[in-house]
């Protein structure tokens, strides 16, 4: 600092100001408080869940359901009373607690619906229970997301994250690779989200959500595409086409909004997909040299991706 002043880069007044600011610096606990609030709600819901689960015999299902419904209704009632007026632009929440109470409301609503389904099978097994739960969780969350997006609640970001994050996780965890249906459902959902993103930007309806939509759309689309590639064993070459189309589309998007994040994700997904295909093709020649060939491929392609990322970094930075 003194160096800079000596060189005449910073004026003496500025130096004084900086020194003064440094000496009476306030320690901000804003984010700490927010984190605690957020954690508190998460812990409260999970703790209640465990407590109720342990005492399920003495309490009874109806009471629990009523309690959850009451809590949920209370939360939404509070939000309804305090919500800022509707607007298609970004709306700031009226006070610090608003977001969290809304979050609590959403969580309890989800719990309520799941509870109903598990205990009383309210939504029935019209489509066969197994597929239905999968579909319903997906759809209920999506509906909530849409409602929230329409009602301009800023935390819809978070709700979207929690809700949809479950779906791709399920694809891996429940081993639903074997289920062709969920792959196509994923593709559909992804396309829908991308279209929503486009729509909201074009019409300036809540365009600050468009990143969230696009983000989930991209991840779900790519994961479904790769899952399709791994699942439909004999058609893996065909799946390369949608993958490349997606890569092209999101590449254009990433350049357009100069997003490093999209660039990285599409590079990694494309790399996985293309490497899979090339490895499969190399394995067709089944002899001793294949393994070394595959490793050489990975080294060469890795170096190429390295250079590609460095070049993209420069390109995006320039914009």
């Amino acid at each position: 600092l003194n160096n800079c002043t000596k060189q005449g880069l910073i004026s003496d007044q500025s130096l004084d100001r900086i020194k003064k600011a440094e000496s009476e610096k306030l320690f901000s606990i804003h984010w700490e408080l927010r984190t605690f609030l957020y954690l508190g709600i998460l812990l409260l819901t999970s703790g209640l869940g465990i407590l109720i689960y342990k005492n399920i015999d003495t309490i009874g299902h109806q009471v629990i359901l009523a309690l959850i419904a009451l809590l949920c209704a209370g939360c939404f009632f509070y939000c309804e009373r305090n919500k800022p007026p509707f607007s298609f632009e970004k709306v700031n929440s009226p006070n610090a607690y608003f977001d969290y109470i809304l979050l609590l409301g959403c969580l309890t609503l989800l719990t309520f619906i799941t509870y109903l389904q598990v205990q009383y099978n309210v939504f029935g097994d019209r489509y066969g229970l197994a597929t239905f739960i999968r579909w319903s969780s997906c759809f209920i969350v999506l509906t909530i997301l849409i409602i929230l997006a329409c009602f301009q609640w800023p935390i819809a970001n978070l709700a979207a994250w929690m809700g949809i994050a479950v779906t791709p996780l399920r694809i891996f965890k429940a081993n639903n690779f074997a289920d062709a249906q969920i792959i196509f459902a994923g593709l559909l959902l992804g396309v829908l989200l991308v279209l929503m993103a486009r729509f909201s930007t074009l019409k300036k309806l809540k365009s600050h959500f468009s990143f969230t939509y696009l983000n989930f759309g991209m991840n779900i689309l790519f994961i479904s595409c790769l899952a399709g590639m791994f699942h439909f064993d004999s058609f893996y070459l065909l799946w390369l086409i949608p993958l490349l189309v997606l890569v092209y589309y999101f590449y254009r998007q990433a350049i357009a909004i100069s997003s490093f994040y999209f660039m990285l994700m599409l590079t990694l997904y494309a790399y996985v997909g293309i490497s899979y295909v090339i490895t499969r093709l190399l394995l067709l020649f089944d002899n001793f040299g294949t393994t070394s060939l595959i490793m050489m491929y990975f080294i060469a392609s890795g170096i190429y991706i390295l250079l590609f990322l460095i070049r993209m970094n420069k390109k995006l930075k320039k914009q």
Partner: protein
Amino acid sequence: MIVYNENSLDRLMFKEEAAIALRRQLIPKNEFDAVAAANVVDLYRPNIFIRIGLFLVTVVIASMSFGLIILVTADALDSDTGFFWICIIFAFFIYVALEWIIQSKRHYRSGVDDALLWNALGFIVAAANIFTGITRWNNHC
């Protein structure tokens, strides 16, 4: 001993401090520009996402190179000492690559140098493990 060019690191620090001061409106914009112009940073520091990507890709390259070496020297794996020497030599090569990347390519926390550093350390630890007999390679075969 610091491999990174100390001058560059100092300049980077000045610039970052000035940016913080600018954000808190302690110095006017023209002073920040003057500081930035006087302290041109020649280090390669990509965006955090690109850094993650570079890290992953570098790990892939390093592990595939290791696999290739293992394939070529498959006979050496019969003994612990053979594997020990492969690890040591490989760690050495990675370290040389790291120094090269930092000195001539001026990478600074770019993902590539992170990955190479971790890999070099990992292989040294692996070699130490085998040497001291904590992990015996042949038992796993």
